[in-house]
């Protein structure tokens, strides 16, 4: 009686004492009447495979298989999570360097910098328009300006930074529309109930859609509030958190302070339903979920 065993290093044929008879590829056709080993044979087979001559093949074939597994593991969720995280990082990055740009530019033309609130518009304008034109726009004569006379070399350095800031704003908006379109495509229900910004953050926090689907609504309610939750679990004197990321949702924001926890709980409930429908490719019913949620509190 002989046994067959399919290992990662190819087919192996064992005799009834579980010694290796032959190892190679496509062996089973050569031997008639091969048997499948049962559960308690498997231990003996595992031991028989401990032969040093198999080690090189174990390493080589496992590396090859793992490479394919890693390759196949990439899903749209990975792109969504990277895009959402990039957005957050861009926000902090842009903020830092625009502050630097403003400080630097104000040596040259403080009046124009003060006259314009929006950072994005500010970068756009100083990158494309000449300084004299900008002064004219706010009706200030160069002579009465507080700005210093600076050399073309210095001006160039400042304007180069301004152009880079403008590019970053373009990158930010294109990344945002990319993330939103991916989210709409893969998680339409979640997007409708949560809004794309919060939907993205929830996914980013969970890591993948699969993990978000596995979470109960109570966990979704507290995503982003881990610190407070664990503080509460260790020390009962500190109050439990009522919401994490969901606090930013307009539905929770618009509620009275004393009702916010209740709103977050109901919202998390609907979100958990929405993401499950999306993940298992159910029909679109985001609008209905959202309506139910609003009606519940508008009696």
């Amino acid at each position, binding site marked *: 009686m002989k046994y067959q065993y399919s290992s990662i290093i190819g087919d192996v044929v064992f005799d009834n004492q579980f010694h290796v008879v032959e190892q190679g590829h496509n062996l089973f056709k050569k031997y008639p009447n091969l048997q499948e080993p049962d559960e308690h044979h498997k231990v003996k087979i595992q031991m028989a495979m*401990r032969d040093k001559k198999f080690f090189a093949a174990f390493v080589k074939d*496992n590396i090859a298989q793992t490479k394919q597994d890693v390759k196949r593991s*990439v899903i749209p969720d990975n792109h969504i999570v990277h895009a959402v995280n990039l957005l957050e990082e861009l926000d902090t990055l842009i903020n830092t360097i625009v502050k630097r740009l403003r400080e630097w530019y104000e040596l040259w033309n403080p009046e124009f910098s003060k006259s314009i609130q929006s950072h994005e518009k500010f970068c756009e304008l100083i990158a494309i328009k000449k300084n004299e034109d900008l002064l004219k726009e706010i009706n200030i004569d160069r002579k009465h300006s507080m700005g210093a006379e600076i050399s073309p070399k210095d001006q160039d350095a400042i304007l180069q930074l301004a152009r880079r800031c403008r590019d970053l704003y373009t990158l930010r908006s294109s990344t945002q529309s990319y993330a939103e379109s991916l989210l709409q495509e893969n998680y339409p229900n979640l997007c409708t109930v949560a809004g794309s910004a919060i939907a993205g953050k929830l996914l980013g926090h969970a890591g993948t859609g699969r993990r978000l689907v596995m979470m109960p609504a109570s966990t979704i309610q507290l995503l982003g509030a881990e610190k407070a939750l664990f503080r509460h679990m*260790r020390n009962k004197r500190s109050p439990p958190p009522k919401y994490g990321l969901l606090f930013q949702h307009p539905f929770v924001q618009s509620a009275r302070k004393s009702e916010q926890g209740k709103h977050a709980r109901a919202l998390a409930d609907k979100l958990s339903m929405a993401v499950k429908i999306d993940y298992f490719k159910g029909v679109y019913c985001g609008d209905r979920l959202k309506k139910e949620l609003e009606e519940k509190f508008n009696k």
Partner: protein
Amino acid sequence: MKASKLQGVYEEGRSLYTQNLAPGIRVYDEALVTVKGIEYREWNPTKSKLAAALVKGMPQMGIKPGSIVLYLGASTGTTVSHVSDIVGKEGIVFALDFAPRVVRDLVFVAEQRGNIAPILGDAAQPKTYAHRICAVDVVYQDVAQKDQAGIFIKNCREFLMPGGFGLLAIKARSVDIAKKPKQIFREVRDQLAKEFTVVDYRELDPLEKDHCLFLCKNR
């Protein structure tokens, strides 16, 4: 540089070293030291729980040159690379992790060394990777999951040779955040004692907070 009590591990002053299997290549940012033409890699106890246990006085670890090791929770291969140094060319390390991101780095380490077989799989389901490995001398587990001891026992039953060693790193904070670490360690110890002989255990404070490493021997 002199050999320590453990085969394959060297010491100089208070630092531990292993002989570099792939000379000239760093795996993380460890120091490389060459003595009499042989290159050693420093084994940092703040980055590797196994090294931390040795520094805290664990008398043996079961891993020696030529061992076959199943490493669960391999991550990017920091500790795995030192285990691979110790077992050398005669041995093999089956290194398993669940997250594609870290396995990507692990594959690069495996390609440099020739005795690591990386596997992308879930340690809680030994059946899914049984055909990719063989019976082993040592099971080392360091996964941050709730049922760490249960996963460990399941894998040992399936793959550990009689008389083989099991090393289990317990992260108390992933078992239960509210319980006292000491109590968790006691519970895990009782659970392990039913299946194995618990040879030694070391709490890893202050090198790793709320961690503990158990050494058991299969009956």
